């Protein structure tokens, strides 16, 4: 069968190359060129910084801010964007050995069956893009977005794959992309953190708070999580019985005494502390105000399907737009629960996935439309996707037939979409083979995606480094090429 020969050949080509390149880092790229924003903190001197004299951005940016919607658990590309009619014909046939040899799967054992797409696809828009029936809203904006079908990664377990996607390394402890960006470019809003994170779906992503951690960068660059209940940002509210009036009086006393301390000791760090306390005071007003989505007109709330007070992806999308408007530099939305293995109904690629799409389809579409109608889409980079893809084979955990249709983790091919921020409109980029097993044209590695995101922000990913543990680290390690083909 030609199809399988083709796939087999691709597999060989790419696994060899992948293993060759995997996890090797020199971090060379540029000893110079680490850059700092704001120098009010006492950053320890490092050689890289000492040699640095080049300010960011490196060149004119196309995007000023980024919103990354990470579907934690990894949605199936084969049921959403990557239409494979051939796979339908192969449904329930044994998977050929050639596709399995030398491959590591998380759960598939022995010989699995092929699994045809579980939802129908139709063409939409002037671009004629194929979109699954379970994304009815999204199909209306296909002419605004670029869909990349040839994404691939190195990891096939959630936590490492999420870390690789968000921090450039599968091992915990590296700064996340949002930390790099705010470290390099700062925030455009003094009353809000430059990097904010919203979580829905009932759980944090598998990578935990490492997905927005600052790693070895100073802690002020870590993503600040907005919470669904209680304080929107931890400890932003005054304690019960401490009115704003009293808080002001107490801050006046603190600042006055700090000032007197400065006069005595002459340590400039004290002045910085006074200003940080003032900013905290401002945040106490600005944060709850911005977080209050009930202030949005009803029409807009409906557009997103938002219901103030609820913990939902829809609310987070609307909130994210409000934050973007305020100049927050980098926003991550995590929506948990896409891991459709087929071990129960909610985890099936037919019913479970449809339900999950119902949670995100309308709000993610509304976000793009809303940003567009406000003129914000042009300089806001929007990204949507999971940490890896799903296998064209049906999962057979423990070598048995499972009760529901599910797919195992797959690192070789998955789909994401991007919009705004200098990304082409109505484009489908890259191509996978006839069963969606390997990318066969214009493959995009997660490091390429990261390089591209930085590029749109005016940052050369090879020159943007930070010296730690004796070497210069980059978000993209020693990898990554800007995906020029998707840039408008």
């Amino acid at each position, binding site marked *: 069968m030609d199809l399988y020969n083709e796939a087999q050949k691709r597999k060989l080509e790419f696994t060899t190359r992948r293993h060759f390149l995997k996890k090797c880092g020199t971090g060379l790229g540029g000893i110079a060129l680490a850059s700092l924003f704001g120098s009010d903190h006492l950053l320890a001197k490092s050689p890289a910084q000492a040699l640095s004299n080049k300010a960011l951005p490196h060149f004119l940016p196309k995007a000023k801010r980024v919103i990354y919607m990470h579907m934690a658990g990894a949605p199936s590309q084969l049921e959403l964007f990557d239409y494979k009619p051939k796979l339908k014909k192969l449904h329930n046939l044994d998977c050929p050995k050639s596709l399995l040899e030398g491959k590591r799967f998380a759960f598939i054992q022995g010989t699995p069956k092929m699994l045809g797409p579980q939802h129908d696809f139709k063409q939409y828009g002037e671009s004629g893009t194929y979109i699954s029936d379970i994304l009815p809203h999204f199909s209306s904006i296909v002419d605004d977005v670029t869909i990349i079908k040839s994404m691939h990664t190195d990891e096939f377990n959630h936590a490492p794959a999420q870390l690789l996607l968000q921090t450039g390394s599968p091992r915990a402890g590296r700064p996340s992309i949002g930390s790099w960006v705010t470290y390099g470019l700062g925030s455009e809003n003094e009353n809000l953190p430059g990097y904010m994170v919203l979580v829905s779906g009932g759980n944090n992503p598998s990578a935990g708070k490492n997905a927005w951690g600052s790693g070895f960068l100073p802690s002020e660059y870590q993503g600040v999580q907005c919470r669904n209940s209680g304080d929107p940002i931890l400890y932003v509210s005054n304690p019960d019985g401490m009115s704003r009036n009293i808080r002001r009086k107490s801050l006046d006393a603190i600042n006055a005494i700090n000032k007197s301390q400065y006069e005595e000791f002459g340590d400039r760090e004290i002045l910085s502390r006074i200003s940080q*306390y003032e900013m905290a005071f401002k945040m106490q007003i600005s944060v709850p105000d911005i977080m209050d989505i009930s202030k949005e007109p009803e029409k807009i709330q409906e557009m997103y399907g938002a219901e103030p007070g609820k913990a939902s992806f829809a609310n987070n999308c609307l909130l994210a737009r409000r934050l973007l408007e305020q100049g927050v530099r980098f926003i991550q939305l995590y929506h948990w629960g896409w891991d459709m293995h087929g071990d129960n109904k909610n985890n099936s690629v037919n019913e479970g996935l449809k339900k999950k799409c119902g949670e995100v389809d309308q709000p993610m579409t509304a976000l793009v439309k809303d940003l567009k109608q406000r003129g914000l889409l042009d300089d806001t980079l929007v990204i949507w996707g999971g940490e890896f893809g799903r296998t064209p084979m049906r999962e057979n955990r423990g070598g048995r037939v499972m009760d529901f249709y599910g797919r195992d983790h797959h690192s070789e091919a998955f789909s994401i979409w991007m919009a705004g921020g200098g990304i082409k409109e109505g484009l489908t980029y890259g191509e996978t083979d006839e069963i969606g097993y390997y990318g066969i044209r214009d493959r995009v590695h997660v490091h390429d995606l990261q390089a591209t995101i930085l590029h749109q922000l005016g940052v050369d990913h090879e020159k943007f480094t930070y010296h730690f543990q004796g070497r210069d680290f980059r978000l993209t390690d020693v990898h990554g090429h800007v995906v020029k083909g998707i840039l408008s």
Partner: protein
Amino acid sequence: MASYQDYCNYLLMNILFRLNLLASFLVIVVLLLLTTSCQEKKIDFNADVRPILNKNCISCHGGVKQSGGFGLIFRENALGETKNGKIGIVPGHPEKSEMIARINHKNPEMRMPQERDPLKQEEIDILTKWIEQGAEWKEHWAYLAPEEPEIPEDNTGWGTNEIDNFILQKLEENDLSPSGEADKHDLVRRIYLDLTGLPPSTQQVADFVNDTSENAYENLVDELLQSQKYGEHWASMWLDLARYADSKGYEKDGTRNIWKYRDWVIKAFNDDKPFDQFTIEQLAGDLLPNPTVDQLVATAFHRNTLNNDEGGTDNEEYRVSSVIDRVNTTWEVWQSTTISCVQCHSHPYDPILQEEYFSSFAFFNNTADWDINSEEPLLKELHEVDQDKLDKIKNWIADRSGAPVSNKWERFVLTGEPKLRPEDFDAVENVVHQNRSGQDYMRVFKGAYINIQDVVLKDVDRIYFEYRQRTKSKGTLTIRTDSLTGPVIGKASLAETGSFKTIPIPLTTTAEIANLYFEFQSGAENYSCDIDGFLLGQKLPGEKDREYEDMYAEIDEILNAPYKHSTPVMVEKPEDHSRQTNVFIRGNWMVKGDPVSAGIPKLFDGGDLAFRNRLDMANWLVSKENPLSGRVIVNRFWAKIFGRGIVATVEDFGTLGDYPSHPALLDWLALRFTGEWKWSTKKLLKAIVMSSTYRQTSRVAKEAEEKDPDNRWLSKAPRVRLSAEQIRDQALAVSGLLSEKMYGPSVKPYQPEGIWTIPYSSEKWITSEGEDAYRRGLYTYLRRSSPYPSFVTFDASQRELCLSRRINTNTPLQALVTLNDPVYLEAARSLAGQIIQVAGGKKEKVETAYQRAMGKMPTTEKAEILIKLLDDTETYYQEHQEEAFELAKSENLELASLTVMANALMNMDEFIVKN
């Protein structure tokens, strides 16, 4: 050197011939002077040349990238032929050296460094002269053994000990002078915070301030070094390096029970365990002769690596990842040498080759742990009744065969090692290896066999078989030697067990090495059981004794008994089943290159030491042959006290690290520490804090600030923000809430709802009760994927990687923590509750509160500010009584305004900074 003189003389002669004698007389004088200065000005590679190379050349001409075939890490490379056939450096001949030609090139396309500004003329001169003088190479300073420095003179009478002589010398060189001694109140708070991590009580301040005896300060230092709180404080620093946490990391991030190690560190500091011993026990305690239980606990240092329990992970992948982390951490902690880049290729800046990384890797590649959920090998802590039994058995054995044999039995019972696991099985038939998702067992079916070759059976008289059978059918295990049909040397019947169980199988062989076959049979066609492994039990002495069989029976009981808890420890795999280490091609663990054996990089001189295992490596780290450990360790303590190391890059003493600000002092301290102080941390710290340097005021002098804004030369004491743990501890301490309880499982003080929302995990943050909610920060449960929020905000480590330096930041989120985190409110309320009882008016109350917090009386100005705050608050609360009652949690207006004042105190710069 000679060649340069020749060159000068040649010039001289030439000129002499060309000029008439009279005129040339003057010239002779001038040139003689020049020649003399040439002779004197010997270019020093480390001080003069290396910085230029590092800054301008090494990123392209280093250990990895050798553009044009020219590299500057090793001399032989630099002197060799480059790609275009030219030679980069020809000693003695700058005119023949391509490097000199290229840095001087007129054409910017050809000129080096490429696409950058040309070198400064004085830099070019240095490089030229250096080549003229023979292009001598010198090892990087840190790789040369420390030399006993001459102690500089101090004619000022300022200094207290030798440290001050070194500091003073540099101050004078930089046209600076030391500051006077700090105010006694500031000093006493400083020394308490530095040695114990906690502030002094009002009484403790008064005791010191009122003690006018000559030795008052020294007595206090001695007392604090003896305080139990000392160990708790310094453990915090070490736990960052050890990446200690209470969870395993990654997705599920489940609890790891390893707090015994944290307690071991506290005790080690309090006992002033010599640092060499401290090192050896943590890296290789298990390999010491007859290790104690405590020495096994110490090895948990390297069991703090992450485990990935996520479904579908490859156990070997994450085991390798742990070994890599152990290598990198060891090199960072003891050598401040960053070796992680050498995984993939030779070091870009330092002379370390890629295969040498794997020689280090080989030291750590032979432990029995794997990335499995159970985290075996574990060291059990038995219930008292079983511990009593074990003690009895130990004594019984010791009486008959001596302590070493008894010690070995103790380890066997407590760790269940040595054990042969599926990884060690040479051939199997009719089995399925369950090795994903943190499992590691062999499921065997009817007729299955397992073959393990070359099992050393010397002194082994039984095999303890660990298995689980979930079906009712009966099975048998037959052990044979030589072949599947060879002689039977052991037999056991297998039955339903439910969970894993350990049964003894006595062996009837005298062979010292055997090729073992384990065969499984059953009457039931669908028979299966799961095999965890085979433990090799040594022979008990006293065969003829009456109690002999009882001893075996009791051992069996303990092996299967429930236990209190357990700690992951390091256990070396038996020699006959040790792992082979190979280079990973380009760092990819799945692509193996040449095999390597354990060893240290050639850069270092190992002396006569042999390098077989971790113990050898640990011994080398603290040996006389090691140029780095002493310096690295004293520098860590120095940095913790002064907020900046003598080498500012405490984590990197390599080529790209900072040059020491006081190299002679660093060597002096290192030689004392490893010599006459016998690796005593307390002696080291005492010397540092006794110095006049340490006791200076932290007030900034205008002139000094202009000349030395970073206070590199220490013309004053630094002001350092307290650590995350200290800030919380201090708030609890001054408000009287802090518990003094030491040791034990980590605690969960209050944190807001919804911090732990971790997939596939049912673990909950349940707030600890009673005093456990008010323990010192180092006892707070640290879940890596979701650490205690206010600690992270104040720059604490998430403990995923070894961290040498926390970077202190100053952010509004920190302000929100100390203003609004309920812990700080509770502390404020508690302090207010004590202040309200102080006799007198607002002035007295403000003074008492301030004194508790800062250890001294407020200035009039500050007192007035605080009194005004009390006045304003009171006025407001009189009109808003409900609010006051809410804040004070009591119907007491005064308590409310005092709470506001106390909360303000705990947010002042002078409270969260060490003055």
